[in-house]
Each structure stands twice: as structure tokens, then as C-alpha cells.
């Protein structure tokens, strides 16, 4: 029979997978989102249009569907199943994890891109003009003046997305990634104990609390010279 400790151990192990999915998604999605935001602002009309169309498609379809596409489509359409890709060396759980990670990164990069774009476009024109007067180059203007202000502007919407990501990781269970919710439902299916399912809520809540505190601190810090 399961005890509170043994269940906690199993759930913690699942939560480890949840956390790796969470941090790796952020690690890749933030720079990719910045790239997407820049591309959706370039002068070349065709490229700008393509980028915005892609963002529209990703934001307009459920993440659940995107997970299915990443995991099943290579095998069904291209006859090249994800689990048999040489990079994974026959490790099925790893291939599913990477597939899920890919879907999460693309999905979140698109949301981040829109947040970044909003943040960039919110900077008054006068700032660019001032930089030009001072003789700064385009990249100097962006990295030394604009980006820093963008970061402060986007902290609130980003914290929103990041907290959503914590909970969205539960969707990975649909493609056989054994994260915390899958671990809890496995205990339920094998031993018919229900409470671990609700207990997962404590893990999500605890982690969200940490993130909320962290973002509160960042916000406070960044608004030090503001107002």
C-alpha cells in the first residue's frame, strides 16, 4: 500500500520531469520568441507576413493538437517515426520528451513574440530619435536603450504566460511523457488511490507561488527608477 511518503516520492519524480520541461521550454522559447518578434517587424513585407501567419496558426490552434502533430505526424505522413530517429538511440521516453519540448517551445515562442512585439512597439519614437542624435547605431540603440525598457514593460504579461506554462506542462502526459499528473493517474490506475491526483495541486501551487514571488521581486527591482 502507498504511504504519504512513497506517493510524495513518486510525484516528486514526476515533478522533476515537469520542471525540466518547464525550464527547457523557457530557455529555448525566450530567445526564439525574441527572434520571432524581430522577424515580425522587419521591413521585408513577405517575411513579415509569413512570420505573422505562422504566429497566427500556432496561437490559433490548441497546444494539445500541436503535441499530437509533433509526435504522430512524422510516422504517419513521412514514414519516419519520431521514436526511431537515430538521435534518440531507441530511447522512447526521451524521444517523446523532446517531441513535447519542441511543441512547447514553438507554441510559447509565438506567445512570447507577441508580448515582445507589444513591448518594443510601446517605446516612444522620441527614444529612437534621441539615440540617432547621439550617433548610436541601430544595434546599439536596440540592445543598450530599447531592450532594457522592453524588459521592464513585459514583466507582467510574461509572468502571466510563465505561470500558465507551469500548468500547461500537464498536457505532455497525452504523448506519454511521465510528468507529475501522469504519475498520479498511474497510481490511481494501478492501486485505485485517488488523493495523489489532488495532491499534485500542491506541487503546482507551491511552484507557482515561487514564480509569483520571483516576478514580484523583478518587477519591484526594475521599477526602481520609474515614476
Amino acid at each position, binding site marked *: 500500500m502507498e504511504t504519504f511518503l512513497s506517493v510524495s516520492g513518486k510525484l516528486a519524480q514526476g515533478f522533476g520531469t515537469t520542471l525540466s520541461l518547464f525550464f527547457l521550454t523557457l530557455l529555448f522559447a525566450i530567445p526564439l520568441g525574441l527572434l520571432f518578434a524581430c522577424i515580425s517587424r522587419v521591413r521585408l513585407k513577405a517575411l513579415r507576413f509569413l512570420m505573422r501567419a505562422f504566429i497566427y496558426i500556432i496561437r490559433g490552434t490548441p497546444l494539445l493538437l500541436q503535441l499530437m502533430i509533433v509526435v504522430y505526424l512524422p510516422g504517419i505522413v513521412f514514414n519516419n517515426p519520431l521514436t526511431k530517429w537515430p538521435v534518440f538511440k531507441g530511447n522512447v521516453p526521451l524521444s517523446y520528451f523532446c517531441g513535447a519540448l519542441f511543441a512547447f517551445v514553438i507554441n510559447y515562442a509565438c506567445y512570447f513574440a507577441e508580448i515582445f512585439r507589444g513591448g518594443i512597439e510601446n517605446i516612444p519614437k522620441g527614444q529612437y530619435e534621441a539615440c540617432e542624435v547621439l550617433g548610436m547605431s541601430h544595434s546599439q540603440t536596440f540592445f543598450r536603450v530599447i531592450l532594457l525598457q522592453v524588459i521592464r514593460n513585459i514583466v507582467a504579461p510574461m509572468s502571466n504566460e510563465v505561470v500558465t506554462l507551469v500548468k500547461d506542462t500537464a498536457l505532455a502526459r497525452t504523448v506519454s511523457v511521465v510528468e507529475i499528473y501522469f504519475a498520479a493517474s498511474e497510481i490511481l490506475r*494501478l492501486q*485505485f488511490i485517488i488523493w495523489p491526483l489532488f495532491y499534485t495541486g500542491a506541487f503546482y501551487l507551491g511552484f507557482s507561488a515561487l514564480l509569483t514571488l520571483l516576478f514580484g521581486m523583478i518587477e519591484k527591482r526594475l521599477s526602481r527608477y520609474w515614476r
Partner: protein
Amino acid sequence: MKKKILTALALTGIFAFSACTKTEAPAPAAASNTRSESDFEDISAKGKMVIGITIYEPMNYYGENHVLTGFDTEFAGEVCQRLGVEPEFQVIDWDMKETELKSKNIDCIWNGLTVTEERRANMDFTTTYLVNKQCVVINSANASTYTDKASLASAMLSAESGSAGESAITGDDTLSSASYTASNSQQDALVALNAGNYDAIVIDYTMAKASVGSGDFASLQIVDGIELANEEYAIGFRVGSDTTAKVNSIISDMIKDGSLAELADKYDMKELYEQAVK
């Protein structure tokens, strides 16, 4: 001042809430007292038996004109008729079946339910009426590669998490050495097998027979001649329910008068029925 008003409001709220719970508390207790005496009296008083199911062929599924049919649907209909109550089929989340049963949302689970020792803690089983035979399903393109257990020893396998198929793999000397990944459901396992993510999956024979070879699963096939550990199907009632004995006697009547065998034959499961009641 504002704070004081708020505290006062909050306190009245708490009092109001506790008052509500206090007045309401005796009602359900009284109801459950009369209820707990006989589960069957409760069902016959309602005039209906609420049967927890999930939709899957050939047990409970929508046939022509979107009418619920299937082996278990017809079987339950016949048993309920002999009990003198109406069957009411309630689609449930299979993971939540124990909770549904305990909370009395449903009166029984009747949907190809496998008998396991662990489940006895949460429900009483009737006599078994079908064998839940497990079978190996592969892509037809690999038919010459995977012919027996030994050829599957280094394959990528999957089954539904916590299913009889999973225990058939993990409990098997040869198959347990293969690479195994749990799927969310038998359907998910079929889709992943179809995509080539797995080499073979182990699912219920009834499910395999109904799905393999049709629609998008036309390219899949059952591997004949691989014997796996089988489990048995029964109906699950609440622990201590007196309905179990009543249903048991109806089942043995149906076995004697041949009506259950006839039903099994109709759904192409005669072999599974004979193995269970022999």
C-alpha cells in the same frame, strides 16, 4: 473603520455558512441511513439501475441511428429486465470509476471490467462472464519480422498504463526485456503504433478485433499464436451490495438457458465466453 466593517462581514459570512452546514447536515445522514440497509431496495425504489460505462466496441457503443448497443449494453438490458428495473447508461471517466461508484453516482461498473485483486478493495465482483484475452498487434508490414515472443524481445512495446496488456508485458519472461512505454489509452497505443512509434502493442482482444483492419487501422494486424496472461471480465458493484447476489443468480440462469451464449455469438465472442464459464 473600513476594516471593522469587513471583519464583521466576514464573520457573518462564516456564521451563515456554518449555520447552513449545521441545518443541512442531518438530512443526508438520515438519507444514507435508510439507503445503506439494502443497495438493491434503493435501486428498485428508483426503478432504475445506473450503469457506468465508457463508449467502446464491442461492449457499449453507438450503432445504427445512434442507438447505444453492444454486448454489455444488451447483457445489462436483459439482466435489468429480469430484475424489474430500467437500465440507465451513464458514460464515465474510466479513471474515476471507483469514485463514481463510491459516491453513488452510478450503481455498477459494467463495461468490460477486468477482475483484479487490488480492485476488490473498492468493489464486489459478480461471476465472470468473458475472458479478457490479451493480444499483440503490429503493423502488417512487419508481419514477417514479428511472429513470436522471442522476436519481440528487443522491440519497442506499448500498452495502456495500468491495463491487463501492461501486466501481460511486464509479467512475461520474454516480453519484459523489451523496451516498454505506457500509453494513456488503448486508442493512443493504436495511433502511436500506426504512426510507427512502436513496433507492437498489447491490447484487449475484443478491442483489437473491432479496430484492427478497418479505417485508418487497416494496416495493422493481430499476431496469432502468442499466448499471454489473460484476465477475466465481471460486473463491479459497491462493496457489500446485495445486488451482486441477485445479478449472479440471473447470470447463472442466463448461462443455463443459453441466452448469454447466444449474445456472445452475436458479437463474435463465443470463444471468450466459453473460456470464462467452462
